[in-house]
């Protein structure tokens, strides 16, 4: 390659970079990217999860997580499966990455396709049923527990893109897309809103699109990194919520 071609090639690339930076500077908040992102599992290949086997073949460890002080989430209706998930928090993501050492993540799910009647609505304090778990970034929960927490007006965060959120989201959920540039500002705002450590121990449910979607896990790790210690990931996400015919809102407002 002669020097003229090398120079022109460099020119094309430099022009591309300049245009990209200008476009990003003027982009709307949901199209804008932070120049340097933080994605802890960027180089970790997730194990391929085969289609869920029929319920009887699932390996279920019928035990309550050792860290729980109170009955496990929806113990009557859900089996507790302890496993390290595909998105296990081997590195901490967030504003204070050095703050926490992640442990294995406990997954609490209902057996697939098993009928799980929602737990009775009582005046029980969500904190009694879903106590803080500072040693784990998040616990995965299924519809019955999510619905119960929703009835208790627990904070819900939608980790999907804002454009998708506007098409439909869990009633009352706030939009917190991990791929948009303002997510760190929103996380800071939430931290300011819940500055008291007792408030940080209140349950927060985070969801995205279910399946192999990891956005909710990434957001949970971000929040866990700044001391929120009672986070729940709705593993099956919004499609499951819709399937159950639960309350959905559309538009920009929660």
């Amino acid at each position, binding site marked *: 390659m002669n020097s003229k071609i090398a120079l022109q090639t460099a020119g094309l690339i430099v022009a591309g970079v300049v245009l990209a930076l200008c476009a990003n500077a003027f982009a709307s908040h949901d199209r804008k990217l932070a120049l340097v992102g933080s994605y802890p599992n960027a180089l*970790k290949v997730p194990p391929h999860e085969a289609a869920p086997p029929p319920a009887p073949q699932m390996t279920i460890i019928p035990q309550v997580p050792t860290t729980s002080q109170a009955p496990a989430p929806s113990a009557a209706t859900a089996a507790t499966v302890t496993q390290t998930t595909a998105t296990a928090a081997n590195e901490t993501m967030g504003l204070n990455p050095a703050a926490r050492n992640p442990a294995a993540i406990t997954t609490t799910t209902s057996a697939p396709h098993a009928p799980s009647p929602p737990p009775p609505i009582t005046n029980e304090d969500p904190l009694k049923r879903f106590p803080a778990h500072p040693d784990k970034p998040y616990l995965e929960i299924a519809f019955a527990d999510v619905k119960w927490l929703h009835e208790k007006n627990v904070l819900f965060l939608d980790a999907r893109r804002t454009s998708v959120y506007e098409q439909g989201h869990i009633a009352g959920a706030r939009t917190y897309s991990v791929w948009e540039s303002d997510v760190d500002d929103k996380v800071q705002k939430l931290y300011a809103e819940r500055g008291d450590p007792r408030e940080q121990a209140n349950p927060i449910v985070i969801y995205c699109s279910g399946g192999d979607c990891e956005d909710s896990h990434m957001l949970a790790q971000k929040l866990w990194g700044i001391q929120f210690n009672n986070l729940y990931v709705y593993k099956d996400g919004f499609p499951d919520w819709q399937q159950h015919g639960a309350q959905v809102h559309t538009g920009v407002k929660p």
Partner: protein
Amino acid sequence: MKRLLAHPWLTIRVQIALGAIFVIAALPKIADPPSFAHMIYNYRLVPSPLINISALMMPWVELLAGLALILGAWKAAARTVIAILLAVFIVAISINLFRDNAIDCGCFNVADRGKTHEQRIVDMKVDVLRDLGMMLLVAQLWWAAAEEKRRFAEPPGSRSVA
């Protein structure tokens, strides 16, 4: 055959087609950088700090290279950039095929299409074949340019009159 392959009629059409493909591929990525960043993340090959900057930069470089080919300006640079991009795509998709990491390639569409693992693996194989096909188009452009250069380098008397 050699003359046919390097014929200007063919070269100009290959140039425009390849340029148009890259312009069309760049537009959805430019329109939605966060989704493209998500696609790059799914490849699990780019270190965390480089994901966003790659997602911002790559589509614009694709667009400029495509436009340069269509307009016939800086052709050598444009085909070099396109060849490098195609090589990167082929290697990246092949590595993920080898690792059985099923992903949407994000080549022409950055929306999550909700495909199954098996569907994605099939798509990835098709994507590699398509990119190899485009690499052949780049090779044709290179061949034609080299032929043209060789023809002009020959002494005037030895040139054959068309």
